[in-house]
C-alpha cells in the first residue's frame, strides 16, 4: 500500500541547546510514550503525534528544555 508522510505541527518543543544527552526524564514520564531520543544527536524529540498536553515532560525536565504548546487543532 502506498503511504505518504505528512507534516504535522507538534505540541512538544525541545530546546536542543538545553537538552542533556544522558537524561531521559521526559521520556520516562510521558503517559503516551511519544518522546524518544534522536540516536544521532542524543536530544529528545516528539516522534508520535499523540500528545495529551498534560505537562509531566515539561515539569520534570531538569534544564527547562521543554515547552508544551496546546495542539494546533485545539489552540
Amino acid at each position, binding site marked *: 500500500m502506498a503511504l505518504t508522510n505528512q507534516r504535522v505541527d507538534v505540541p512538544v518543543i525541545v530546546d536542543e541547546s538545553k537538552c542533556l544527552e544522558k537524561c531521559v526524564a521526559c521520556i520516562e514520564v510521558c503517559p503516551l*510514550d511519544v518522546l524518544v531520543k534522536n540516536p544521532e544527536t542524543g536530544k529528545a524529540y516528539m516522534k508520535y*503525534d499523540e500528545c495529551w498536553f498534560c505537562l*509531566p515532560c515539561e515539569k520534570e525536565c531538569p534544564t527547562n528544555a521543554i515547552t508544551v504548546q496546546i495542539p494546533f487543532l485545539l489552540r
Partner: protein
Amino acid sequence: MNIQYLKTDFLVVGGGTAGTMAAIKAKQASPESDVLILEKANIRRSGAIAMGMDGVNTAVIPGNSTPEQYTREITIANDGILNQKAVYETGRLGFEVIQELESWGVKFQKDHEGNYDLKQVHRVGKYVLPMPEGKDLKKILTRQVKRHKVRVTNRVMATRVMVQDGRATGAVGFDVRSGDFVVIQAKAVVLCTGACGRLGLPASGYLYGTYENPTNAGDGYSMAYHAGAELTNIECFQINPLIKDYNGPACAYVASPFGAYTANAEGHRFINCDYWSGQMMLEVYKELNSGKGPVHLKMYHLDDDTIAEIESILWANERPSRGRFHEGRGENYRTDGVEMNISEIGLCSGHSASGVWVNERAETTIPGLYAAGDMASVPHNYMIGAFVYGRIAGETAMGYVDGLDHMEPDAEFLAAEQARIYQPLEKPDGVPHTQVEYKLRRLVNDYLQPPKSPTKMDIGLEKFVAYEETLDIMGASDPHELMRCMEVHFIRDCAEMAARASLYRKETRWGLYHYRLDYPEKNNEEWFCHVNLKKGETGQMELFKRPVEPYIVDVNLESEIYDVAAR
C-alpha cells in the same frame, strides 16, 4: 521475538488511582505475598490523575454526612439503578482513605478551625473536599508503592486475561518499547485500567484531545469481556460539559463554591446544580438547542482576588495546560465566560454508571478476577471510590489467593494471542492506526451520540461488527504503533457493547446519557433493572436483565425525582 515469563501472587493491571491502592493494600494485608503492577505508561505519571487532582468529590466525613445520606444522593442521581451496597462502601470507607492519604503527605483543605473545608456541589450534601495542592498525588502514591515493596513493570500493556478452569490465572501482553511478548502467571488479577476515554471523536478532530487520559482506551472493558465477565449498564454513557475544544473540565466543582455558575449566552442560570449527571447534561443539551447557547462557566461577576484564587487552583492541578489554552486565545476569566460544549461519548463509572460488573467486594463474575476504578461498575465513584475499591480488591484478593497455586499457561491460548497481537507488525505498510481509529470513532459520533435513534444505532452496530475486518488491515512499524493498534481493538469492542446495550434498553434513563427518541420516557415497570452483557458460549455478545439488588437505604423514587432545571 523474545518472550518474558513473570509470576506473581496478585497481578494489578494498571497503576493509576485504583491500581496503586490495590497493590499497597494487598501488601499491607499480606506482606509476604508477591504483588506486581503492570502499567503501560509509567506509574509516576499515569492514569486519570497523571498530573494530580484539585479535589475529591465523594468525601463522606463523619459529622458532615453519613454513608446512608451519600447512598441516597447517588441513588437519586443515578435514577435508582445501582447496587446500593457497593455505593455504600465508598461512603463508609472514604474517610479512612482520606486519613491514610493525609498520613502519606496529601494535603486537603481545612478551615481556620482545622476542620475539613467541605463544599456543596451535589444536589443535597457536601461531599466535595478541595485539595489545592493535589499536583503531586501520583508521585506520593508511587513512593508508597515502593515503600510497600510492590514490584512494578512499566511500559507493558496487557491485552488479555488468562482464564483456566473458570478462574483468572494471569494475563498476557507486550512490552510497548521492546515488543517482547509478556506472560504473567498470577493467582488473582485486578483490572484497574480506567475509562474508555477514546470512544467518541472530540469535535476538534484531535484523537488525543480527550477528557480522559487517552491511554485509557477501554482496555479493561474489553479484557473483562473476553475473559467472560459480565459488564453492566454500558448504555449509560459518559458525556461531560467541557471547555470547548480543550475538552478539559470547566471545573464548576472548583469554581461554584466561590460563586461561579453555569450560564447561557444571556448570562442566566438554567440549572440549579452543577454536579455532573445525565439529567444535568440533558438541560445543557436543551439549552444549546433552544437558541440560548452557547453556555459558559460564568466567573466575570466575581472580584479579582476570588478569580485569582480559582486560577491558582485550576492552572496547577488536574489539567495545568488550561491556563496557556486561555492565554493563547486572549481569554480572561475576569471578562470572558469559559465557553462549554457537550463532549463526545465515553464509558466511565467514575462519572456515570457503566462498567465491568462488580459487587461490594470488587469481585467480577469470574473467580479470581477483580475490577476497580473508572472501569468497575460502582456509579459516580470518582477518585475516592477508585481508592476505596482498589483497597477492597486488594484485601479481598489476598484472602482469595491463600492456598491457591499457579496454573501452567495454556500453550494454545498463548500461541493464538501472540498471533493476534503481532499481526500488524507483519504488514508495516498496512493502514495506519491513526486512520483506522479516526474512522471508527467518527462512526461512534455519527451513530451513538445521544439522542439515540434505533435505526441509526442498528446501522452503527452493523458497521462496528464489520470493523473487525478493517482491524485486520491495520499495519504497524514498531511496538509503539502496535500498542495503538491494539487499543483500537479495545475501542471497537467498547463501541459494539455501547451500541448493543443502547438498543437493548427500550426506555430513556439517566437524562442525556440514554435518551432514546423512540422511547422518550422512563419505564420503571419494564426497565427498573441493570442491563448486563457478556460473551456467550458461542462467542456472541449476550444481553440480559439483571434485577436491582434490594435497597439497604430506603429511597422513594416516585417522589424523589432528580430535576436540576432552573425555573
